[in-house]
């Protein structure tokens, strides 16, 4: 369980990345997973739990030689990931936020949100 503070997720991230390194994934895959997990945790803290210290985030992962699967769940009311504006659209480029989901989808092989929108499951396959 991770508290809803931006700096609190580092330990969890590090554990996951240690497992990724142990299974000899490429540097590119490790970077992709680090980035996607960071983005998902950032969203969970900021948008899901709204920095509410009474709420936590659950990060679970499974790493084997075939794939890395990560599930991140917050305690917020959820959202619709399909209505997030395209951050690469010209009118959105200068905005300081809004890139998290796009980066998750760009760097992971699978990104799935549950119906409520408070849980994301991501998969990176070993290629």
């Amino acid at each position, binding site marked *: 369980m991770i508290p809803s503070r931006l700096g609190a997720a580092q330990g969890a991230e590090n554990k996951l990345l240690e497992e990724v390194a142990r299974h000899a994934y490429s540097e590119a895959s490790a970077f992709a997973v680090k980035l996607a997990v960071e983005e998902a*945790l950032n969203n969970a803290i900021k948008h899901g739990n709204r920095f509410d210290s009474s709420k*936590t985030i659950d990060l679970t*992962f*499974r790493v084997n030689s075939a794939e890395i699967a990560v599930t991140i769940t917050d305690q917020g009311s959820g959202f619709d990931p399909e209505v997030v504006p395209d951050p690469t659209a010209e009118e959105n*480029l*200068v905005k300081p*936020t809004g890139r998290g989901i796009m980066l998750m989808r760009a760097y992971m092989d699978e990104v799935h949100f549950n119906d409520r929108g408070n849980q994301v499951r991501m998969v990176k396959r070993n290629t």
Partner: protein
Amino acid sequence: MPCGEARSQAVCGEGTGTLAVASKSANQLGLDVQRTGTAVVVRVRGSAGMGEAGYLKDQLEYLAESDVRVIVLDLADLSFISSAGLGALLSARARIGSLGGQIRLVHPQPFVRQILEVTHLNQLFVIFPNLDDALGA
């Protein structure tokens, strides 16, 4: 299946005007600042993720308001940046832009350069081939 533990190890600087920070590990952010006339070169070391983005934003905005026309970010030692770190760069870009200045980038590592391309932010931040070109432009 193990769950992650909640231990904060990221450094979040307070950004009250101190420009030089000694970075102790690859997961923290270090900024080494060198001023040349109205230009400032900032060597960004380590990681600019969500734990460091607030500090990065504060430091760059402080520089932007310190009679600086150009901020050159030397990214040779920046191993990671997330959307939060990019947001810090954008906020600083807006601040210095409002004062007639610019932020320029040099030496991004391949993964960082790739993020700039994927997000199309290479359209907003000019990446110069070397420091001399960035300062002389």
